[in-house]
């Protein structure tokens, strides 16, 4: 016996005659004895009819002429050989290309940020050293203010000073970006405030907590004094490097 919930779920397909005969018959039977579902179907039908009756949109008068002119220019443009082929390939694979491009841009931005924050001692990668990559993304907020709104002359960002060896095993973590709220204390220690994403993963939270505790930051400075800072970090990757 069909109930109202099931009937409403099938109502749209029923309207378009897209149901298998038994389902169509069941909906029909239900409708014959349910005024509420009949009214619902009537509303859907009315909306569908109104959409179909929308007046056609007239293209701008110059669209065709401009498009043909662009076509002529495109044809006259001298071929750029491999560059054109590459551009066409990139356009037809927009998603992977944009993913690679955004990775490269992130890497460059990260490099630029590190460059600004020098001198930064290089962190030797050793066995079981968690690598944390901080992305200069829109997630980067400092004490409730976006990094761009801070007065750079009186405020310096916290920066990574050194990473100690850690027993944290993070080799399994190579999923989507991890969004972490961390407190960078005035003495340079880092601690976890909250694991925002992925939520509900206590085991991962412990890994992140351990990894953060192995990091030493140069604290943020305000007016020449170290100040505690809350950072939202987008951790691109956490793994164990050998």
């Amino acid at each position, binding site marked *: 016996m069909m109930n109202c919930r099931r009937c409403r779920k099938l109502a749209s397909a029923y309207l378009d005659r897209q149901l298998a005969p038994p389902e169509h018959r069941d909906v029909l039977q239900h409708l014959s004895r349910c005024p509420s579902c009949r009214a619902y179907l009537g509303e859907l039908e009315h909306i569908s009819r109104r*959409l179909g009756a929308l007046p056609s949109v007239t293209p701008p008068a110059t669209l065709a002429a401009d498009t043909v002119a662009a*076509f002529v220019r495109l044809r006259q443009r001298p071929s750029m050989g491999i560059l054109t082929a590459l551009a066409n390939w990139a356009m037809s694979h927009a998603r992977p290309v944009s993913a690679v491009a955004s990775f490269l841009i992130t890497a460059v931005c990260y490099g630029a940020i590190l460059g600004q924050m020098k001198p930064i001692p290089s962190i030797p990668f050793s066995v079981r050293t968690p690598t944390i990559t901080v992305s200069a993304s829109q997630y980067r907020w400092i004490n409730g203010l976006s990094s761009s709104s801070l007065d750079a002359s009186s405020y310096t960002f916290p920066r990574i000073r050194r990473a100690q060896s850690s027993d944290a095993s993070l080799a399994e973590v190579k999923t989507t970006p991890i969004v972490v709220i961390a407190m960078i204390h005035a003495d340079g220690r880092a601690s976890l405030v909250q694991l925002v994403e992925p939520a509900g993963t206590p085991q991962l939270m412990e890994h992140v907590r351990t990894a953060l505790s192995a990091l030493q930051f140069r604290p943020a400075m305000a007016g020449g004094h170290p100040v505690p800072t809350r950072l939202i970090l987008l951790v691109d990757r956490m793994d164990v490097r050998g």
Partner: protein
Amino acid sequence: MLSVAVAERVLDEVGAADEMSASEAEWVERVRQGDRSAFEWLVMRYQPNIYGLLYRLIGDAEEARDLAQETFLRVYQKIDQFRGEASLKTWIYRIALRQAANHRRWWQRRGRDRMVSLDGPQNGQQRAVIDTLPDKGPNSEQVLIDRERQRRLEWALRQVKPSYRVAVILRDVEGCSYEEIAHILRISIGTVKSRIARGRERLRQVLCEDALEVEDD
């Protein structure tokens, strides 16, 4: 002999469709060779559909215009990939929707929602900027009512999640079959059913809420 009449009509339709696709194939071949008049034919034939689809989807005349132009240029650049397995129309729709999707992602990254369109309603309001400008044309009351209803429907359509919206537009506005929509969007028939159903349901909710707000006012 109703059945005979029906059969004859079906035969006529099939014949007309074959004839059309045969001539369409010739035009496609000429476009492939870079023939300007063939490209003109392509634009003139499909621009109402493509521009209309993009306009309904995006709700901004200027952007729909740019995207329609980009779509036709992409069609020319990719015409070698058209194998004739689907109709030319559905193939061009697919390119147009890909352009629109790229465009949407581009704007999402740049906070499109903070911009004001002359065509679309402003944040939280039912009236578009263009409506605040003085209207000098002759208007009867009925024309105004119809225009207002149409605007509310178009506004409501833009409140529907894009993936559902496009399915509803293709079905109810463009009149595509479920099979065509599945081909255009490269999804299964089951997903087409589900997206159309959810899109219509969402549209119904938005229109109901909108009607209640109007009553409250």
